[in-house]
């Protein structure tokens, strides 16, 4: 198809009096990973629920693969993959049985479930019941389930939440492979490192609103300040000085420190997404 895989215009949703999503608009192109970065309760999961047909938007228009999500068109579900935040797997069924079952709902006659499990490193546990799996293995199962129908759009809600770095890195690699295959990926996270590393673009969402949307690099350039940290010997101790690169007179000061016999190290520094988020919203990502 041509055009965006996901197109959202002025989308709104509220739980009773609580407005969870307030007039958000964005697009995701095929093969692109858009990271939804925000703290818990910011509206990330509600947005995914609307885009996957679990919730009906109160107003606005959302199209996935050109299909209006409020029309309950079964073709939409046939072409998306969803990884939920909660590990909603059939615990008494094996890994392969879980994948075979979901594949059958998509009308896939002979699913290659073991191959899908191999991608997430679970092929050797294909016949084991999911209830015997560790938290990290269950999360990898969740990811593999989202891949079973080779979706054109992937919705991943906190895919690496609470996992160890090795498992997280493995899952990120698999997500990147899906994007390279051409799938559009909408990823929610409150892990700025994950958003930075994985996302082609990042949307900061806070209190139901997108407060910034761009590539991580552009966000840093736009909202962050560049600086240099200089460490110098100071008697028996160490002294640090941080010099803003964009400020007046910083070049002369840097040259002076660089020439000092007490110089130990010089490091350039840039703002993190976490810092930019705090700068834009006044709150942290863990809140």
């Amino acid at each position, binding site marked *: 198809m041509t055009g965006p895989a996901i197109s959202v215009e002025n989308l709104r949703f509220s739980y009773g009096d609580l407005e969870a999503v307030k007039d958000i608009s964005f697009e995701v192109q095929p093969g692109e990973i858009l990271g939804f970065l925000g703290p818990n309760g910011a509206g990330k999961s509600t947005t995914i629920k609307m885009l996957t047909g679990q919730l009906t938007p109160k107003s606005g228009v959302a199209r996935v693969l050109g299909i209006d999500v409020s029309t309950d068109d079964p*073709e939409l*579900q046939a072409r998306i993959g969803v990884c*939920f935040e909660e590990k909603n797997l059939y615990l008494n069924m094996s890994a392969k*049985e879980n994948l075979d*079952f979901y594949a059958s*709902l998509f*009308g896939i006659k002979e699913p290659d479930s073991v191959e899908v499990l191999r991608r997430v490193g679970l092929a050797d546990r294909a016949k084991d019941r999911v209830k015997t799996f560790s938290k990290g293995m269950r999360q990898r199962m969740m990811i593999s389930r989202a891949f079973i129908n080779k*979706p054109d759009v992937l919705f991943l809600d906190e895919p690496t939440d609470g996992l160890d770095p090795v498992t997280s890195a493995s899952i990120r690699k698999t997500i990147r492979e899906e994007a390279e295959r051409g799938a559009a990926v909408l990823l929610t996270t409150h892990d700025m490192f994950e958003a930075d590393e994985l996302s082609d673009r990042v949307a900061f969402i806070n209190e139901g609103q997108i407060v910034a949307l761009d590539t991580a690099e552009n966000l840093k350039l736009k909202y962050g300040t560049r600086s240099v940290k200089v460490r110098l010997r100071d008697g028996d101790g160490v002294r640090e000085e941080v010099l803003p690169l964009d400020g007046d007179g910083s070049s002369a000061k840097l040259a002076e420190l660089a020439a000092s016999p007490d110089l130990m190290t010089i490091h350039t520094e840039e703002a993190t997404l976490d810092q930019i988020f705090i700068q834009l919203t006044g709150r942290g990502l863990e809140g």
Partner: protein
Amino acid sequence: MSRPTSRPAIIRALLKKELTAYSRDLVFLGLTLVVLIAAPFLFHALPDSVDESITLGVYPAIPEMIGDAREALAEMGATEEQLAELDDIDLAAGEEGLELIEFESEERLRGVIEGSLELWRTESGEMVYRDKEAGDKKPEDAERVEPDIGVAFPSDFIAGVAAGKDDLTVTVYSQAGIGEEIQTAMKSFVREAAYQIAGRELPVGMPDEDTIVLGDDRMGDQVTMQERMRPLLLFMVLLMETFSMASLVSTEVLQRTVTAVLVTPAKVGDFLAAKTIFGTLMSLSQALIILVFIGGVTSANWSLILAVLVMGAIMFTGIALFVGAAGKDFMGQLFYAMLFTIPLLIPAISVMFPGSAAPWVKALPSYPIIKVLVETTAYGGTWGDAWGSLAYAALWLVVLYFAGLFALKRKVETL
């Protein structure tokens, strides 16, 4: 990329998953197997016949009663031929299943009936009384005789009846547990005895026989304990499956696996349809398995039994959907399951005590199901007999099934 699949294919996939999940739930699988094995075993362990005999205690002994009357009747002008007829009096004649035990005194008759005195029959036929409180030992090689009812005639009964006296009092003693219908029957028996002696219709109204027969007249073919248990056992299977089904539904809701299903081409309707089909098939198939072992199905009644079991299975599936949706955890699920199933069990239990169903029991949703099962398997009921109950059951089925369906649909959509 996959394409939307057909609704039947989705429902088939969901059913396959239900079967897998069911077979992996060892608790309910085990309980189901226990019920399937225990129900036929229990059924066949129950008596398949009814003890129709009644033991009647009489005072005074018949010869004694006749002896006292002979002289008085002769004085009243009775001929030798008429007096000879007295010897032919047999109170138990023609009364199938009636055993007469003659007592030496009214006190002993009363003591045996009320249980303060025991009566034993030795191998030689001798009757031995045992007063436990007095320390009497149990006689050896003897069987206990327990009259259900005792009749004490006045010593001048025969002569008095013959003379047309209407102030004669016959005392009938009965155990506290003897049913009113038996007591009424005994009163009729005394009147019949008096009729034989007097040789004429006594000026006493005989009770209308129809009024002492409760339900269908099964004279000589009473409902056995097995027949009474049959609907209860079938109901136990349905109840067991209600618990199993509710557990499957609530697990799906609590673990939110249903939300994962609903982001695939499967819709809420597919999910509910699969649950309904699976729950109904499981209940029905197990009820039919039980029926194979406990009998009751004939070529004449199979279609009616199948229809009523299908209705029962759908009704209980509706309850399971409701319980599964309402219970927030295992205890909550157990609470709601009990809340529904215990009242529904009452009609099945009431079958154990024919004639005992109170009007409010008849209003319960399970009553028409049980009624049709009992009437069909025990009394040869037909479609013509059952249509009223089936219509009433259908009304409850619609109410309960759609209540369950609505509750689960709402729950799933708001997860």
